[in-house]
């Protein structure tokens, strides 16, 4: 495992870079996904229509196409940013419909009787939403949301492979191709560092699931 041990500092900075992409993606896709979910369940038809269109179009498009759109399409319109910004934006846009659908499935899982009971005991609209429906919806959507986020962490590698630079993938590629190390140990190192992101994330989510799970 010499190639890995010799370049541990490179791997470490690559790991931090990849982690950075993941965290930006996490914050951004949760925010955008929640907004789209709010659109999709709102009482206003035009917003619902927009939310549905957004989800249908982006969910069926590969991440790579979204990525290419950002990276090669936007410069044609005179919008130039670094690959890092484009890559993270593409990741956020691509993940948002999945976050939206996870949240929406949580809301749909709350039985109508809950809201009816809340109204029957005289809670106002905001009270029934904030104290009865949404807390249950949020807890129910944790498991699907968790798998969406883990998939997003893995998709961060695609953003790296695309040429953001200095992330785990680029480090591995550079060591294997340019510096002539054997590919097997180098890429095993990359894999191990990636597992350092995905496996703890999975464990944390499993813990969270157990903590907030509701038995119906």
């Amino acid at each position, binding site marked *: 495992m010499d190639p890995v041990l010799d370049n541990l500092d490179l791997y470490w900075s690559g790991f931090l870079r990849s982690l950075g992409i993941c965290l930006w993606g996490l914050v951004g896709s949760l925010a955008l996904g929640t907004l789209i979910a709010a659109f999709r*369940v709102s*009482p*206003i*038809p*035009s*917003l619902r229509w*927009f939310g549905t269109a957004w989800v*249908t*179009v982006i969910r*069926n*498009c*590969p*991440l*790579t*196409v979204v*990525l*290419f*759109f950002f990276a*090669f*399409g936007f410069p*044609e*319109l*005179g919008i130039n940013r670094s690959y890092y910004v484009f890559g993270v934006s593409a990741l956020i846009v691509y993940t948002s419909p999945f976050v939206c659908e996870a949240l929406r499935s949580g*809301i*749909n899982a*709350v*039985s*109508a009787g*809950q*809201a*009816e009971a809340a*109204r029957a005991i005289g809670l106002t*609209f905001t009270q029934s*939403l904030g104290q009865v*429906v949404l807390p249950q919806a949020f807890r129910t959507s944790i498991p699907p949301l968790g798998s969406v986020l883990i998939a997003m962490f*893995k*998709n*961060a*590698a*695609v953003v790296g*492979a*695309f040429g953001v630079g200095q992330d785990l*993938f680029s480090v*591995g*590629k550079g060591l*294997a191709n340019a510096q002539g190390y*054997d*590919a*097997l140990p180098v*890429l095993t190192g*990359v*894999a191990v560092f*990636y*597992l350092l992101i*995905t*496996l703890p994330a*999975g464990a944390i989510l499993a813990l969270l699931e157990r903590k907030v799970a509701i038995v119906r």
Partner: protein
Amino acid sequence: MSRPENVLYDEPGPRARRRALVGTVVAGLLLLGVIGLAVRKLAQEGQFDMELWGPLIDPGNESFRDVWRLLGRGLQATLISAVLAIVLSLVVGTLLGTLRLRLGRWSRMPVVGVIELLRGLPVVITIFFVWQVLPETPINVGPLPGEDGLWYLVIGLTLYNSVIIAEIIRAGVLSLPRGQGEAARAVGMTEGQVMSTVLLPQAFRTMLPALISQLVVVLKDTSLAAVLGLYLETLRRANLIAQNLDNPIQVLTVVGLMFIVINYALSRLAVWTERRVSRSGFRPEAAEAEVTAGA
């Protein structure tokens, strides 16, 4: 009272309906405004010019035939790699899934380890790994038919998707009522027969929608080859076309639409099969609940 369509709010009264109408108009205008701005920007930059769109939509254009011939070949390459990957994943996944079910607690540890490892790795890394490492091993994909890079992509996709399918199959078998396996054993079938003639066929049927959805994932993941520059599938060909004609927005729009249409059709198919499977009267969960309730 009829069941409300949405748990979030009641049947609207006259005031709520008025407010919803106002909201609809305001939101609609805002959305139209945003779309209008985007269209204006595109028009300003000349993105609607026939010079850019012509090769894609005007049959009279000199490049039209070449562009569509290349896109057609790309689509063919995408479909070939996706179908190969899903078929191989199905075979390997079924083996892995049944192996995990059949082995004892300690002997299945390596299988569980492999499954967790491959599931935790980004598929793009798996594909790159296969592409870089396989040539250093005695395994040679050279004699296999197909274009450059096809088999590296297919093997990479298979490694990832077979463990996903193994989990789908395992969940399917575990969701069957226990009586199915017990009855099969009681009439004297061997463990292999129980699995292959009683449990797996039923698991496949209930898991069919999930398997079709996985095909959508595979189809999307074939385009990872374009990022790696490994195999000439749709997106990579599209990228080359866009570089030649200098019209990335137009080409990517067309390619995106191709993916959306195919994947949307597949997801509808998954929903349709799901409805058919559950309508045919056999619901494993329901059967399971009955068994536990009876016991």
